[in-house]
């Protein structure tokens, strides 16, 4: 929109640089506001859980507790069997993660490096199962679990979650990135195909396996729908279920206690976030690019 006169009178580089600086500053401000809205609720949760219950509803809200008060945390341990919930969640999540890593590594390797009839068709079927919403299969799965006498057990949550289409897909991609010549070299050295997988390919695929494990951990640690259906007695609850029931018991009474529970449940997810952020991002977006 500049007129010719303006162009002549001002030197072009100065104008563009000034303009760019302003636009960068403007963008940073917008992005900062956005991140305040994203991180604010979590900070408020943390800070409220660290304040005495009587100050739960303090307004204006405080985002930094000046003198942290841990009564809400001791209350959580009294009102909720949080140790049991953590053990349940850890058991369920850990076994699913390990199970997915093992089965996905085996299947992914077969799809990437072994030859057999119907490989392409079978792989397509595996991929297709990714698109089936969990809600459609939940009723028959529930009945199956009930039929074999596993209803209201942690195994009901673990076993159906172990076969993973996405993990298989991810591991196949990963193994395809490893050269087939390794298998030849191993065969010349006298290794059996199984030995080749175990001692040559599996160790090299550890980064891919870590992604499968971290994704499984994040998803199942936070899972709510299946535990809500599969478990009935409180001794089999996982963390998200326990927290929702705690909130229900308390009504809107002492929210600091509920929030303390929420914060405690977030800690493992936070640890995974800090150490596995890159892997999580790669895993989530895997297969969506070209």
């Amino acid at each position: 929109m500049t007129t010719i006169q303006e162009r002549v009178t001002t030197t072009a580089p100065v104008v563009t640089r000034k303009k760019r600086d302003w636009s960068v500053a403007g963008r940073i401000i917008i992005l900062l506001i956005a991140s305040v809205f994203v991180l604010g609720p979590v900070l408020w949760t943390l800070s409220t859980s660290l304040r005495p219950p009587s100050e739960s509803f303090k307004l204006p809200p405080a985002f930094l507790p000046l003198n942290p008060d841990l009564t809400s945390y001791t209350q959580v341990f009294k009102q909720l069997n949080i140790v049991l919930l953590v053990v349940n969640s850890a058991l369920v999540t850990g076994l699913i993660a390990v199970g997915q890593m093992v089965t996905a590594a085996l299947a992914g390797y077969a799809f990437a490096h072994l030859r057999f009839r119907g490989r392409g068709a079978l792989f397509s079927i595996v991929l297709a199962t990714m698109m089936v919403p969990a809600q459609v299969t939940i009723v028959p799965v529930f009945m199956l679990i009930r039929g074999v006498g596993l209803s209201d057990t942690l195994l009901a949550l673990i076993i159906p979650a172990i076969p993973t289409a996405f993990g298989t897909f991810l591991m196949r991609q990963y193994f395809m990135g490893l050269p087939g010549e390794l298998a030849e070299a191993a065969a010349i050295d006298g290794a059996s195909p199984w030995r080749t997988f175990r001692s040559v390919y599996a160790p090299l695929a550890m980064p891919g396996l870590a992604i499968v494990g971290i994704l499984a951990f994040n998803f199942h640690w936070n899972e709510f729908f299946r535990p809500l259906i599969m478990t009935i007695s409180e001794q089999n609850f996982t963390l998200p279920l326990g927290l929702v029931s705690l909130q229900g018991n308390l009504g809107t009474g002492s929210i600091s206690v509920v929030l303390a529970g929420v914060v405690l449940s977030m800690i493992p997810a936070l640890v995974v976030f800090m150490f596995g952020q890159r892997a999580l991002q790669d895993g989530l977006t895997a297969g969506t690019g070209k």
Partner: protein
Amino acid sequence: MSTATSTPTGTGREPGRKVAHKHSQPSKRGRVQQRWLPWAFLAPTIVGMGIFTLLPIVASIALAFFRWDIISAPTFVGFDNFAEVVQDPTVRVSFLNTIVFVVVAVSLQLGLALGLAIMVQEKLPAWLRVFFRSAFFFPLILSAASVSIFMRYLFNEQFGVVNWMLSLIGIPAVPWLTTPGGSAAVVILVYVWQNFGFSFLLFIGGLASIPVETYEAASIDGATGWRKHVYVTLPLLSPTTLVASVMAIINALQVFDQPYVLTRGGPGDSTRTAVMVIFESAFQRLEFGQASAIGVILTLIIMAITAAQFRLSKRFVFYQ
């Protein structure tokens, strides 16, 4: 392990690479092992999927034609479940709610993600880019249940931080969770808050794959900031947008955790979603046949929308 496989052929190395690729003539036992070996590798996954995904799909479709409360024997009722479900006002409202939810939440999610991704991707100090990327990604690692728990307090009518903030700019307290419109808005806002980071990541990846030269060429042709994005970024980003929208829609159609914890579907049926109705008819009213029928309808809708998107994309998606 096995000693038999340790002697490949005895002739030593074959000269050509192509021959060597075929694992240099395995022994008889090796060949037999190679035949069943792939199936041994695949067995856990294939058997597991057969039992926990494929079989349940078939069972779910079959179950939709039966009336079954798990206690007495199932009776065949033909299309009765479908007829009842389609006429049930609660089911209808819940599907309508789901569609409104998908349209509003997905547009918000994609718009927000795209806008922020463009802003983060353009010249920013590296450490700031890392910070924003982590910040926007962060809610994805939290459980929808815990997010909904603390959001309930933030949206509290009298003591909630949201209404306090609105009061600062002179807006009177909004009855978020006690009115149909307010509840729907909260469910959408909370869902978008937690999930826009996923689309954001996809867009960041897509933007990174657009070559810098394209922008240089565009700026030589006189494209300024805004036009640059309309004529360069959007067309070149269309494959990413397709993937992001397909995934966002599929996920949004299955929303359950947030409305369940935030509002339990209320007030009235205002935030009841399709999946919530499946859950309620199966596990609260023990109408497993009807639940399956609703599930089948939802799946058909998901498949139809996905197919339509890919068909439409043939006209609008621009591949480099």
